[in-house]
């Protein structure tokens, strides 16, 4: 008996009797399936509903100012952009399951780069689209009422400024640390294949 056979004998002594049966596993699967991608699907569905809603409002109601049409279109486009980006991300994960470990780590690294792109570009476009769109969209509603005009625009301006200069950088800093740690880990894993 050589050492490898000894290791195999020890290895196979692991207790696997406590594993769930296939019926129990199917029950677990039906409870948990899709849970991981649920948030992404929620974003996609809500964005698409918003997009359709904006377009429907623009088509059904007649507005006098072109700013309303520009605003509605910008918000619809931002919603559509968000839905497309999240859908692409889901599609990538679905195509993944027959990859070897090396391809998988390369995929994870690409996912990390996509996440960085999502934070630095996609979110900027979406936020800019919604902000500009909203400002154009409500103009027709309030431009005749100076008090409302001032209150609505200054409140919205403060909200956008807080989101843009406080919340977003803070979230990005927090995620950047996580993403950097992931990058280091991927590099370490890739080195093991050399």
């Amino acid at each position, binding site marked *: 008996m050589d*050492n*490898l056979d*000894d*290791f*195999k004998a*020890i*290895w*196979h*002594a*692991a207790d*696997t009797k406590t*594993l*769930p049966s*296939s019926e129990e*596993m*199917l029950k*677990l*699967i039906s409870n*948990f*399936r899709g849970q991981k991608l649920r948030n992404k699907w929620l974003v996609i569905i809500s964005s698409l509903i918003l997009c359709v809603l904006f377009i429907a409002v623009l088509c059904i109601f007649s507005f006098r100012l072109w700013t309303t049409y520009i605003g509605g279109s910008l918000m619809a486009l931002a919603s559509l952009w968000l839905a497309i980006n999240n859908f692409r991300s889901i599609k990538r994960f679905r195509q*993944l*399951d*027959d*990859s*070897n*470990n*090396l*391809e*998988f*780590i390369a995929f*994870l690294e690409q996912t990390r780069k996509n996440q960085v792109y999502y934070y630095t570009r996609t979110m900027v476009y979406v936020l800019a689209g919604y902000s500009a769109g909203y400002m154009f969209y409500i103009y027709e509603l309030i431009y005749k009422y100076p008090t409302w005009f001032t209150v609505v625009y200054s409140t919205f301006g403060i909200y956008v400024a807080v989101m843009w200069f406080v919340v977003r950088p803070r979230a990005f800093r927090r995620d950047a640390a996580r993403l950097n740690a*992931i990058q280091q*880990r991927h590099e370490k*894993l890739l080195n*093991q*294949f050399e």
Partner: protein
Amino acid sequence: MQTFDEIYRRYSPQIYRVCLGYTNDPEHAKDLLQDTFIAVWQGLPSFRQQSQVSTWIFRIATNRCLRAMEVAKRMPSEELPFNLAEPRVDSKEEKLRFLYQCIAELNETDRIIISLELEGLAQAEIASVVGLSSGNIRVKIHRIKEKLTQKFKAHGQFR
């Protein structure tokens, strides 16, 4: 084409042992087993049989192991107290625990390679799961086996 039930019955003990070898944590290994079979269940209708079912399942499981480390709260320790004087391991359970400890000290890909080797996969299949050449796998297995043997000898095994 095998059914999910047949696949689960045949591969779940193997997948569990591989995940246990990687994590050295039975609860975490069970989570990974469940995660693997969720992916198998979802992917089975579209599985095109370009590779063997076993290769496909072991790829899913080992990829889940590699990824789980990014999100796991319970990280397997790579720095176990091997230099401490430990009692000699004689019972089956103690030997098994010691083997898992030794494997946990290896780097991630080595853990996967030796787990698949101990599971009895052919080296060509291990190469296909990991993404290295068969020659490379053969060399790595030899080195890992040497490392494990040294650890076991240092603890009074393989006299």
